[in-house]
């Protein structure tokens, strides 16, 4: 295929349909499920937007594609908008899928007796998906809250999915942060168990002392200002999907997803969905305190934001104007 580049396509309205390319930081991850689900449910089409979903294994390069103008929007972690502001780039979240990270800190089965709280991380190997990722920052933050510094334990890059599972089974990591369906798989294989469940508000507050809005749809501020109509249509579609998730059972949602994305194991996927589906918001709205909490975490761990919390204007990192309208529309 000869793919037209997103930036050219966005301005071209073919037969009254807006064309939008969205880069998803892992189309198959359950935390980013609304993207594929909206497509499967046909809500984009209903709104008159022609959406192309691209995928990328790590969220970090997604921003690059966004800033370089290769795509119009990214489905990824909200915290990137803050980091980007520190780098002088304005990005904003327009639909917030979840106010919790959707991650869980897992403890390897062999270490279940020794690691019972953040304070027990001393001298252990803590797995993260990749250095400089949100999992890295969250780990640093919750251990620091328990008085354990990064010097006291080893951070190990363990990837996501099978490499993570294998590392945990083989003792390559003693604990580690990951998302579903890895969490559910680890539990089923009895290779690890949940220490902090940041798929729920309670667990997130326990680990981080507040919410941590993560999975979201964000765009460059310029684009949002210049294409309000299109953004509104996207917001409408996503909010409708969030409603759908709320109103339907895990099995019903799973049935809407392409078989491939479930990895051929329907029951595993459904049970993972079941434990994760609670994290999604119903209205796509950002929790303001949560945004502030994100800044707190980042200004602790991210080298660009360290000690610069004051210089960040949170109001420029997200907007609820579109979801507000979408709510009233539905």
């Amino acid at each position, binding site marked *: *295929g*000869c*793919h*037209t*580049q*997103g930036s050219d396509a966005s301005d071209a309205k073919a037969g009254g349909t807006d064309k939008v*390319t969205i*880069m998803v930081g*892992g*189309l*198959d*991850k359950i935390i980013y499920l609304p993207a594929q689900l909206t497509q499967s449910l046909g809500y984009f089409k209903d709104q008159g937007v022609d959406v*192309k*979903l*691209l*995928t*990328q*294994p790590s969220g970090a*390069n*997604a921003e*690059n*594609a966004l800033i*370089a103008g*290769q*795509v119009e929007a990214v489905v990824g972690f909200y915290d990137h908008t803050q980091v980007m502001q520190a780098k002088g780039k304005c990005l904003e979240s327009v639909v917030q899928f979840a106010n919790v990270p959707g991650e869980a800190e897992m403890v390897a089965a062999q270490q279940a007796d020794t690691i019972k709280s953040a304070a027990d991380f001393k001298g252990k190997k803590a797995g993260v998906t990749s250095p400089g990722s949100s999992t890295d920052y969250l780990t640093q933050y919750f251990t620091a809250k328990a008085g354990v510094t990064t010097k006291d334990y080893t951070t190990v890059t363990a990837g*996501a*999915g*099978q490499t993570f*599972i*294998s590392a945990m089974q083989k003792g390559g990591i003693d604990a580690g942060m990951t998302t579903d*369906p*890895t969490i559910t*798989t680890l539990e089923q*294989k009895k290779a690890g168990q949940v220490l902090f469940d940041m798929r729920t508000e309670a667990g997130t507050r326990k680990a981080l002392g507040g919410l941590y809005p993560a999975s979201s749809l964000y765009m460059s501020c310029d684009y949002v200002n210049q294409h309000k109509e299109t953004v509104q249509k996207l917001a409408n579609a996503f909010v409708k999907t969030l409603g759908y998730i709320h109103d339907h059972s895990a099995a019903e949602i799973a049935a809407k997803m*392409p*078989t*491939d*994305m*479930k*990895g*051929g*194991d329907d029951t*595993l*996927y459904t049970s993972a969905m079941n434990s994760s589906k609670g994290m999604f918001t119903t209205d796509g709205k950002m929790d303001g305190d949560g945004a502030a909490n994100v800044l707190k975490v980042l200004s602790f761990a991210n080298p660009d934001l360290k000690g610069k919390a004051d210089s960040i204007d949170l109001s420029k990192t997200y907007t609820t104007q579109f979801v507000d309208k979408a709510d009233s529309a539905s």
Partner: protein
Amino acid sequence: MRPDIAAAVARTRRRHRNHRIQVWLLRLALVVVVLGLWQLATTFWLDPFFYSQPTAIAKKLYVWFTDGTSKGSIWHNIAVTLEEAVLGFVTGSIVGIVLGILLGRARLVAEVISPFIQMANAVPRIILAALFVIWFGLGLESKVATAFILVFFPVFFNSFQGAREVDRNLVNNARILGASRVQVLWSIVVPSATSWILASLHTAFGFALIGAIVGEYTGAEFGMGLLINQAQGTFDTAGIFAGMIIITVIALLAEALLGLLERKLLRWRPPSPSVDTAAV
């Protein structure tokens, strides 16, 4: 032709055919043994979650080829990857061959530039793939660029060395006979370097496929890389292997084409002794 000679020629043909049959049987046997051991091992000792199973992979392939994938028809995904790989292969080989041969004959330029080429060769391609997305966008171009860069280096280095290995007698003779620099390049250096270049092309198409797939990893809408990436994300080990098998089969087909080309280009060679010349 005298009858005894005709008989001898027929004998040779027969021997060739028998040899080919033998080779294919041995290959088949090898495949069967490997698949059998794999199936056995994953049934009794190894966790198929990590190692998958031939039967599971076969099932996956069956589904892909009958029902299609979540990204549309498998053929479409293959076509996308193939297009990227072929473009990268063609451009990468051509540029590699041309630059390699030219630098191989231009000593001063080669001496000045070669450390930089060595450096460029050591740049990890995954990082480059990320940069290419920024420079060339998410479309075809960035994947072709990744495939290009993977193909370019081995082809370049072999062409370069091949151009330097040319028999000096041949070059001298051609120069005396009135060949210009360009003609020496074209009539002496290129044919001499052919076996070097072909040796690198044997690996190059595999690299082009890898490049296309690495490119698709960095962001794509369709393609085998995407399917594999997705399989990885969903713990679908059978899907990973199924994707790899499709890729390797493509590579084999390309290799077969390349073999034909090689036989054509190197027809002037003395046949290898063991199979071909024995008693016509």
